[in-house]
């Protein structure tokens, strides 16, 4: 594809519901990242995939957060039993060769928990 695609672009959910956020990386990019960005703040690392495995998931804030990647391509970030503090923009990025190369970002999913 032309770039990293994320869906939905906006999501409003009720507290306690589960949500799934999707990321479609650039074709051929082996590395995929999820970050969280609160309003006007920096990026908080969540998880890194190399292929289908996640060598670094140290940033997942709680066991309510999980992510998977299938076929070395699409990734899904799932948040169970959402809380108001989960409200943020969730950014996905991919890169051809991990840390040595630039990350290409999607436009993010703005999650609002009400």
């Amino acid at each position: 594809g032309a770039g990293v695609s994320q869906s939905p672009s906006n999501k409003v959910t009720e507290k306690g519901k589960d949500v799934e956020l999707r990321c479609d990386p650039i074709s051929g990019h082996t590395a995929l990242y999820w970050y969280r960005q609160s309003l006007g703040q920096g990026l908080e690392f969540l998880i890194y995939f190399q292929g289908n495995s996640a060598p670094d998931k140290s940033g997942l804030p709680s066991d309510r957060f999980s992510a998977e990647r299938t076929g070395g391509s699409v990734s899904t970030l799932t948040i169970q039993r959402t809380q108001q503090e989960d409200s943020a923009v969730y950014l996905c990025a991919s890169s051809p060769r991990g840390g040595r190369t630039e990350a290409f970002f999607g436009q993010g999913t703005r999650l609002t928990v009400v």
Partner: protein
Amino acid sequence: AQTVTQSQPEMSVQEAETVTLSCTYDTSENNYYLFWYKQPPSRQMILVIRQEAYKQQNATENRFSVNFQKAAKSFSLKISDSQLGDTAMYFCALSWSNAGKSTFGDGTTLTVKP
């Protein structure tokens, strides 16, 4: 642990003038990479410039250049002939060869005034 510090939360500059954004970092790695990313109000994060730590020459991309001081662990971004479209949040980031994730600073919000 790797850290990135951007000490200027907000800056402003008049159109056509020059502005410098500061970034300092700390890492125990010898082979690492530094990036400046731009995030305009549209939320799409894009790469501005990249520097490989083993290269002494400062990277330049058109109106954007860096002042990389390896011993001081400093990586500032200079924007010349500022344009209204440069208004955005700028993030400094650090990664290294064997890492997946990049470590990001908290960002500097730059406003270019007409």
